[in-house]
């Protein structure tokens, strides 16, 4: 999601109609954008599928189509007679264009800067996939060459002295930001004119060809690692600029001519549109919907529509992308909801039903339910409990308090008790929740295990009382159980036991070891238990 900041005045000027804020908001809403106003500035939220709307010109164009003020028109392209020869291993794809007689107003300059930045971030994948260079065409001395070199020396944009590649990468702000994209290479892509370097993609242009208030003609270069994305970015940029002013001229790159601003012809079946949308459109109506979302319709007859996809649309992968535009053209606010006739029986999953029973039992025994995150730390899950447990580890945790997945619930309960030392005793807490255990056998190398744990803290904590509770739970779940003494490091020696159901070890209970109490800064006895519900549930 990108936020494009535009001047309301500028926008309405480009749209060609005066509109109150509410109407601007309503129309943009129906065009997939949310907008917020502050004074003259409108902040428009543009979705990733509409990079053509990353400029005020693109937004205005979409609004004009929607309001039936205008339809997309063909782009006239003449020949600049400029060519670029050569190639790069690092950024194999290059495209470009010339735009003559551009009226470089403040608004256009601002918009140009914003759209470059936003395209770099989105389609350009932070310049890795696509990088843009905009130059003053009159400062360029053709012929142009694109090649990889071991080093080069030129005055980069914003500097006054010549710098070589290593200096640029280490000292220039853009060099420092994007040097990592060239890390693995010993050669560097450069665009040369007769006099020297005009562009070092994806890093920086030359100072010599920079755009100033005096600039009348623009030269745009786009380089990258994906052909389609490079071409799309060029098209979006060029068509955005000429919404205001300018004449497009093509350049020749090796054997191709750029920009290619042909509209793609596409035939779509009315039947497919109606099957997906359910609004029962006739050809004529569907055609109107297309026009409102920027498609010229060449003809519509016999259940077919022939539409022209504008060259700045980067998101049409499948007919469904066109069909969504029909719905938008129709107006999402005009689509009447109907209920699907789909009779099904709802239910909780088996685990869900079992969990509910267990939770009801715990509440019935007087326990307060708590909810902890699955994310935790080794400190909490193992160390404080005097254990060394293996667990799922996160490579990029947001903090080291949340860098593993919990393998059991009891530490989380102790954490709750430790946070409530000034609250009335006794305290009884429980949790039923998922833990993650390593498991080589599973496709995701882990098992998500549902467990139950309960803890009681009080001055006269009583192991017998807990045993009664456990018995009550298991009996009410229809389970015969057996207790075998077993020492766990986190329990007091000889004051704990393991619980067996059908000869399976399903859990344990005991009195918490005072060393563990100290680790959690608890100063009262605690009894706890934990049961693996999956083991009880499996047949």
């Amino acid at each position: 999601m990108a936020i494009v900041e535009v001047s309301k005045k500028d926008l309405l000027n480009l749209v060609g109609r005066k509109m109150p804020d509410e109407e601007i908001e309503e129309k943009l809403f129906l065009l997939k954008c949310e907008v917020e106003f502050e004074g003259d500035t409108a902040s428009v939220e543009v979705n990733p599928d509409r990079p053509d709307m990353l400029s005020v010109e693109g937004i205005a164009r979409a609004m004009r189509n929607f309001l039936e003020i205008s339809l997309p028109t063909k782009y006239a392209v003449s020949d600049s007679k400029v060519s670029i020869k050569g190639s790069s291993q690092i950024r194999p794809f290059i495209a470009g264009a010339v735009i003559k007689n551009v009226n470089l107003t403040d608004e256009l300059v601002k918009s140009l800067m914003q759209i470059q930045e936003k395209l770099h971030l989105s389609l350009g994948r932070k310049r890795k996939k696509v990088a843009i260079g905009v130059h003053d065409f009159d400062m360029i001395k053709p012929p142009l060459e694109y090649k990889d070199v071991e080093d080069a020396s030129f005055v980069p944009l914003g500097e006054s002295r010549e710098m070589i590649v290593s200096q640029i990468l280490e000292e220039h702000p853009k060099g420092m930001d994007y040097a990592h994209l060239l890390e693995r290479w010993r050669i560097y892509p450069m665009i040369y004119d007769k006099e020297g370097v005009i562009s070092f993609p994806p890093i920086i242009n030359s100072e010599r060809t920079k755009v100033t208030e005096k600039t009348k003609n623009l030269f745009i270069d786009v380089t990258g690692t994906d052909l389609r994305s490079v071409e799309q970015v060029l098209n979006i940029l060029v068509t955005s600029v000429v919404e205001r002013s300018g004449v497009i001229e093509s350049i020749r790159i090796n054997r191709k001519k750029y920009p290619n601003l042909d509209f793609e012809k596409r035939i779509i079946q009315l039947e497919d549109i109606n099957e997906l949308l359910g609004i029962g459109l006739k050809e004529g109506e569907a055609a109107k919907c297309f026009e409102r979302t920027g498609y010229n319709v060449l003809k519509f007859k016999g259940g077919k529509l022939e539409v022209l996809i504008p060259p700045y649309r980067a998101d049409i992968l499948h007919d469904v992308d066109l069909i969504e535009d029909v719905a938008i053209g129709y107006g999402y606010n005009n689509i009447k909801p109907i209920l699907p006739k789909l009779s099904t029986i709802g239910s909780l999953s088996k685990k869900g039903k079992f969990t509910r029973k267990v939770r009801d039992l715990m509440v019935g025994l007087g326990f307060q339910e708590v909810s902890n995150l699955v994310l935790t730390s080794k400190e909490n899950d193992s160390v404080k409990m005097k254990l060394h447990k293996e667990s799922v580890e996160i490579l990029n945790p947001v903090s080291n308090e949340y860098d593993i997945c919990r393998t059991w619930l009891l530490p989380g309960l102790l954490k709750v008790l430790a946070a409530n030392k000034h609250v009335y005793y006794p305290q009884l807490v429980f949790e039923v929740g998922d833990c993650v255990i390593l498991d080589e056998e599973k496709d995701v190398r882990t098992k998500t295990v549902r467990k139950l744990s309960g803890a009681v803290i009080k001055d006269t904590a009583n192991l017998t009382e807990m045993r009664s509770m456990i018995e009550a739970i298991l009996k009410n779940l229809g389970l015969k159980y057996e207790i075998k003494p077993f020492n766990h490091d986190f329990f007091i020696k000889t004051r704990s036991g393991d619980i067996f159901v059908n000869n399976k070890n399903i859990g344990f209970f005991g009195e918490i070891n005072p060393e563990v109490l100290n680790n959690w800064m608890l100063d009262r006895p605690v009894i706890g238990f934990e049961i693996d519900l999956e083991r009880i549930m499996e047949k």
Partner: protein
Amino acid sequence: MYRLTEEGSGYLRGGLPEKRILNLLSKGVKTDLTEIRNIPGANIGLGWARKKGWIVIEGSEVEITDKGVEVVLTEQEEEKALKEVESSGVTNEDMIKLLLSRKLIEEGKFLKPIPKEKKSFFGKVFGKKKETIEEIREIKQLTPEMIRTGSWKSKSLRKYDVTTPAPTIYPGKKQPYMQVIDEIKEKLIGLGFEEMKGPLVETNFWNMDALFIPQDHPARGIHDVLILKNPVKGMLPDQNLVARVKATHEGGWVTDSRGWGDVWDEDKASQLLMRSQTTPVSARTLVEKGDVPGKYFTIDRVYRYDVIDATHLPEFKQLEGIVVGENLTLRHLFGFIQELSDALGLGKVRFKPGYFPFTEPSTEGYIRHPKFGWIEVFAAGIFRPEVVRPLGIEKMTVLAWGFGLGRMAMIKLGIDDIRMLYSNDLKWLREKELL
């Protein structure tokens, strides 16, 4: 109210000890002190008799005085008072003081003493002769014995002040966020949805690739998702499924799509992460259930790289559902979202065109909140052919929807910090009223 102590009762029957001494001496016998001392109670008797001036003790000889002679046959005040206490529980104040000090009577709320002549008789017909027991005193506590014997009928229980505040107790309770979730589950089940489940740790394959999210999509990086350090790689599913997903990414396969054009890397797909959305559960469910109608939902944990603050946690819950059916359209999607909104009591939905990588057309559903205005709570769309076809769905259309659970729960619970949904504050948990 008073009654005789055992000692008092004994003196009443056998006479005051000082009187007994007198009786001995009045027979004119000069008595040796040591001899008298052998008689039980003699010491007390000697003490009092001397105090009252009834005897003199010279050396080891005890002699009755003239006063003593006078008193021998007269009833003493003490004797009279003892009789009175026995029959009615009271006597004059001076005597009460004296008898108390001699420990011949004690205070208490007692049954009226049974008259001597009725005692043995009463013993035989205990409980039946009501008229012999007079109800005069109040009881604080009804006991099982009273209930069993019926003795409560002749008593009155003391007034209990019901307006006095009592100690606070906290019943066992479900956690507030869990209550919200339980309620929503009820509504969904009522609408015919079956609960589906999936693992918390996922492979990129299910979390991203099967959902047609391109492998170089920015949202797949370390600034968005939680990638695993251990374990690192998982297993990809069935070879044919993997091949179909690969072909779809690279060139659309048979879906009539352009695809993404990039080379699809199996290695990237097998990387493990904490699932960033619940949509992989939907994808797995579609494969499991097949190309047949159904409605499924899940409410479960997902993970993002989000620094913790009042509106962000790295772990939160999503509510997601799919409706699988024949000939489903965008109108049905809207209809279903409106039905869900009605079930949740959220009112009319305003639909905005939206964008999600795995649905097209897509929508965002807004509802009007009395305080916050129009807020976005639904995200929905029809699964793209590039998603469902490789998963084996050809006849059915799949509507998918998600609901902003955390936000709505916070509004419902009246909290403005997302961390409260997992609060450790036992005081708050105990005091929060039931939903």
